[in-house]
């Protein structure tokens, strides 16, 4: 296993994964994987289809608990048995489907599951649509983003706009770590560039990010370090500044450094 943890070592360790294992039947989808993510770091996770990236992400998201291994956040051991556990531990996940409800509008999506309430006639709890709307605009303003038509169902928004809504959702939760599964997939060039900027802005605010991408160009533009998975095993962690794209492709394909 090649390890070159250059640069990031002084920062605090936000996530520490030790010996994570998950099998489906006889197949070890994730096999004894250990790695760490530091504060304000963007860590890319690459590997061919079936390398175990998605299984690893699901374990971190609390969607599929692992069979073995430890997940520590800020030095505290966490059992992530449900999405709620993960969220409470400070892990936010951006799934491929983004986890948005197409038929709800922007503030409703941003606040779903953590709605702001007001009281009707001082007693009866009801949704505070106005405050949720204002907070949504604040969140978006913080990133210099303005979405037209906040009251439309999000299915009417473009791919990049939907990304923004999903990311706003995460920011509301005071996350320590965001896991993004192919955030730039199916986006146009300009929209992809904007999401890239958004990811950097999040990092600049001290949020650590794990990003899964098939697009090595994006990986090299964003990531501080790149971890490479193959057949369920973590076969290398390289600093993106100290490696080349060819080298990473070689690791992904053949699993061996030259």
């Amino acid at each position, binding site marked *: 296993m090649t390890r070159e943890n250059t640069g990031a070592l002084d920062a605090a360790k936000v996530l520490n994964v030790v010996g994570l294992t998950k099998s489906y039947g006889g197949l070890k989808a994730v096999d004894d994987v250990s790695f760490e993510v530091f504060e304000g770091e963007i860590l890319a996770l*690459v590997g*061919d*289809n079936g390398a175990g990236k998605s299984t690893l992400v699901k374990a971190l998201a609390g969607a599929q608990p692992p069979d073995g291994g430890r997940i520590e956040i800020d030095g505290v051991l966490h059992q992530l048995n449900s*999405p*709620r556990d993960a969220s409470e531990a400070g892990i936010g*996940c951006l*799934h*491929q*489907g*983004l*986890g*948005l*409800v*197409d*038929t*709800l*509008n922007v503030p*409703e999506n941003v606040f*779903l*599951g953590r*709605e702001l309430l007001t009281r*009707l006639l001082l007693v009866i*709890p*009801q*949704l505070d*649509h106005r405050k949720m709307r204002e907070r949504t*605009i604040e969140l978006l303003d913080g990133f*210099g983003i*303005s*979405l*037209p*038509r906040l*009251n*439309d*169902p999000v*299915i*009417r*928004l*473009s*791919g990049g*706009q*939907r*990304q*923004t809504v999903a990311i706003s*959702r995460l920011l509301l939760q005071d996350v320590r770590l965001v896991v993004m599964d*192919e955030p730039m*997939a*199916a*986006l*146009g060039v300009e*929209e992809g560039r*904007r999401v890239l900027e958004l990811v950097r802005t999040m990092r600049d605010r001290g949020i650590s990010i794990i990003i899964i991408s*098939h*697009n*090595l*160009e994006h990986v090299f533009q964003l990531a501080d370090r790149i971890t490479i998975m193959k057949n369920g095993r973590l076969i290398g962690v390289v600093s993106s500044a100290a490696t080349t*794209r060819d080298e990473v*492709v070689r690791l*992904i*394909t053949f699993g061996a450094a030259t």
Partner: protein
Amino acid sequence: MTSNANPEPGIGHADRRWLFEGIGLTAVIVALAILFILINPRFGTITNFINILTQASFIIVMAVGMTFVITSAGIDLSVGSAVAFITVVAFGLIKGGLNPLLGVAFMFALGAFLGFLTGSLVAYVKIPPFITTLGMMAGLRGLALVHSAGEMHFGLPTSVTYVGQGVLGGVPVPVIISLAAAVFGAWLFNRTRFGLHVRAIGGNREAARLAGVPVNRVEVMVYVLMGLFTALGGLIMMARIDSTQATIGTAMEIHVISAVIIGGTSLFGGRGSVYGSVMGALLLAMMTNALIIAGVDFFWQLVVMGGIVLIAVAISNLREQRIPALAHFMRREPPGGAESESARRPAQKQGGTLS
């Protein structure tokens, strides 16, 4: 993404767009009313309009509940049978000397319990709503028949019949109750956490679950609410005619579901309109009334109603662009034009190519 094409923040209501659809339906109703009056002036009397509202009252009440069920991507076929079962049991108890107020309370408790049963089967045993409520529909009708086969109950205390026959300030009590139920339902649907959660699980159950919505509990609550509205509808019905029997409410689910679908609530779940459901129920009642006045046979009334439902769903599908051949003509371009059409579906995994 920072498109400032329309920076106007847009004020107010969460589902204004669906309200507009309700207004479209309102316009249809007004136009039809004018047409009916032109054909037959007898249709246009105040008495007749109050008649229509009264006749629609219990359908309105149940359609409000059904709006939640269908918006949650469910369906309840058992409402007619539930009305029969709840009313024959309650009627028997009240006739047997039970305090009328307790009898009415019992109806609501029974309705809530039946809803709880249905909801639990749907949410926890994972039986599809269609099948669950199909079973409930047969089972409850059977129980109603077992309880009072062939028997016809008459003679409720006036305190109960007031709910169906009373008049308050010139307005029939059932009309007042149904309007109150509609206002409450609209508030619950649009302005409460529960309503938001119902719309969320109907729109994308998995996303709602990941967001922390207690999807199973909400689903059970939806059917409990339907049960309560069913009990209220049954109460109005039974009080209005001061009688009930085991065959009451046969095919009522068709009316209730039709009203909701005509009102623009999507059968696919996720979006709906309580206001639309009320308007749908009114449209159906008005059509029936006009056909009666025109002397059209009851059997033909059913045919007309079936036609209206099919047309309403067809229009709704056109609007939602679910018919591929016609979607091209109906499409409202999303911002960003054709390019973002594919971008709207980021869920689709890209091929396994690297770099």
